[in-house]
């Protein structure tokens, strides 16, 4: 009798739970799942010595989700944007939730987006890559043509030059995601441009390449030929599957270690020329204004940078005792050699552990165990790359560049851990 009653109760609960899931997905509320309700409290009926329903009853079969999605309890792990930054969502940016990620791979659906004319939708049969200008043969390649060339598979970070751009004058956005999230790291599959050029040939005078997107902004950037021949790729896959539409499906340019704006998505054309093209993006944008009123131009490399992803404003400390500080470091000049962490605002530093793989021009994971006993902390991380470049403080950058650069803020951030465990983005001075 007792057993029957229990079964009745469980069936009732099960129906309710299923209704809830269907109801939630039907109004598209998956991504807005209230994270506090999901994660803060455990249900005592599911804890020892009780049996939770998932231990007793069958779950979904195969093919309920032919393309699998994250657990419903991970609905808070999403890209987010700052609406007031831009006039239109089609020419805007959102941010990778670095604080919720582990390891070095960014899941495809969480890679931040930056569009200038919305996401182009392209049937791969209609894709063409044109190569023209100072080449021996002006040519057109289909996607299938590109896939028949020798293939390369490489992990690279892509960082927007404006990552952290809102923080030049002071701490403005209170989140790891909003201050560091214009970066992602995936494995690209594609063809090296140095191989493609063997098919077209190259004129002696060719010194620059104009890369052009087929989106409605006609995105264009000039890239010096040395970089093109060194390590640039036309990629059609990321993390083992086709590029996501918002990342340039069916093919994009990969410019390892250099600012993300140059990684032209929905690529349609490469023009070889003897001079830079001085496009809108490399003159009116992506130039770094100094206090003199003059601006640096062609500042392509992304300097070494690091961030503590947890604790962070989104990841407060919830209990005293042992914790694993976690973070990411990267450099456009090569491999990360070392990361130091300070808990007292930069007075004293400890070297963190780097986790393999440590790859050139790729995000690198670091951790450091620490004990928290309820005291205030000022957390900082400092990356050093294989060229011995040391990540600077914001005041070091401000002394040389002022506060109007917008781009290339790779300075050390400070997270204040308060006595209640809350974490704030603060500026020291």
């Amino acid at each position, binding site marked *: 009798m007792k057993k029957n009653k229990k079964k009745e109760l469980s069936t009732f609960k099960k129906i309710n739970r299923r209704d809830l899931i269907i109801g939630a997905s039907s109004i598209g509320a998956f991504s*807005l799942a209230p*994270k506090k309700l999901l994660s803060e409290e455990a249900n005592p009926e599911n804890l020892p010595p009780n049996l939770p329903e998932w231990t007793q009853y069958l779950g979904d079969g195969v093919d309920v989700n032919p393309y699998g999605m994250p657990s419903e309890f991970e609905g808070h792990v999403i890209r987010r*944007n*700052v609406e007031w930054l831009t*006039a*239109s969502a089609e020419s805007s940016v959102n941010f990778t939730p670095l604080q919720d990620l582990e390891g070095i791979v960014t899941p495809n659906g969480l890679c931040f987006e930056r569009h*200038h*004319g919305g996401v182009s939708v392209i049937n791969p049969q209609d894709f063409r890559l044109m*190569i023209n200008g100072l080449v021996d*043969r*002006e040519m057109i*390649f*289909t996607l299938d043509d590109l896939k*028949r060339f020798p293939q390369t598979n490489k992990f690279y970070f892509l960082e927007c030059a404006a990552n952290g751009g809102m923080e030049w004058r002071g*701490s*403005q*956005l209170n989140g790891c995601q909003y201050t560091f999230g214009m970066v992602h790291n995936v494995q690209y599959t594609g063809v090296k441009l140095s191989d493609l050029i*063997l*098919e077209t*040939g190259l004129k*002696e005078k060719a010194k620059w390449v104009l890369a*052009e997107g087929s989106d409605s*902004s006609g995105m*264009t950037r000039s890239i010096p030929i040395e970089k093109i*021949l060194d390590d640039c790729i036309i990629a059609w896959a990321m993390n083992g599957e086709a590029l996501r539409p918002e990342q340039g499906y069916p093919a994009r340019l990969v410019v390892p270690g250099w600012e993300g704006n140059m990684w032209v998505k929905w690529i349609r054309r490469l023009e070889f020329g003897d*001079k830079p*093209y*001085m*496009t*809108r993006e490399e*003159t*009116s944008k992506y*130039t770094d204004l100094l206090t*003199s*009123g*003059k*601006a*640096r131009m062609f500042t392509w*490399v992304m*300097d070494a940078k690091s961030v503590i992803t947890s604790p962070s*404003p989104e990841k407060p400390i919830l209990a005293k005792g042992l914790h694993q500080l976690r973070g990411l470091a990267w450099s456009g000049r090569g491999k990360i*050699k*070392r990361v130091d962490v300070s808990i007292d*605002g*930069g*007075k*004293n*530093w400890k070297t963190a552990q780097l986790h393999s793989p440590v790859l050139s021009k790729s995000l690198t994971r670091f951790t450091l165990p620490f004990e928290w006993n309820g005291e205030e902390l*000022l957390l900082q991380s*400092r990356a*050093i790359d294989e060229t011995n470049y040391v990540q*600077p403080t914001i005041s070091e*950058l401000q002394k*040389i560049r002022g506060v109007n650069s917008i781009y*290339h803020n790779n300075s050390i951030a400070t997270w204040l851990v308060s006595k209640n465990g809350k974490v*704030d983005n*603060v*500026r*020291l*001075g």
Partner: protein
Amino acid sequence: MLGLARCILGFSLIIFIANTATASDRKFNLGQIASSEEVAGWDIDVRPDGFGAPIGSGTAFSGEEIYAEVCAACHGDFGEGADRWPPLVGGEGSLASHDPEKTTTSYWPFASTIFDYIYRAMPYGEAQSLSYDETYEIVAYLLYMGDIIEEDFVLSDKNIGEIEMPNKDGFLLPDPRPDIVNTHGNPCMTNCQVSTNIIGKARDIDVTPEDE
């Protein structure tokens, strides 16, 4: 074969690209030769020296009407901007100030870039819908509002490479980074002399979006 000298070493192929004007052989025999019509349809870029400028012309006088029709809704009747859409003119003398205003006439170093960008990407959401003449007219109207050309100046493919923009010398090359003090990979580790006073909190500025 002068363009490519090949050395076969075992199974690996090492390729040197030599600087010669002679056409190279194809290596993989993939892809198609592009026709001149195909290239002409997509090759729309215009360089500072006027290379690539399509045949056409326009004056500010004739550009006022088309500007009002397709640009003014977002950028204002006089290029002053609207809502969060950017101003197109103004801001002269502001670049060294606390609040620099970077417009086509205060900041952009080349008139060619204005033509190239408007033709390829504007009006927003209707890319490549303007004629070449309309584009020259709009560029002329912007340059006229920025006191760079006269109202009756005929801007064309012949002279767009000769327009002198006010900020043409405002850019620095090459990239001087790394531009910070070099500690050769050995920064201070203990008892470092740094200020740890908190001078600002993002929370106090209160512009961070919150989850619904």
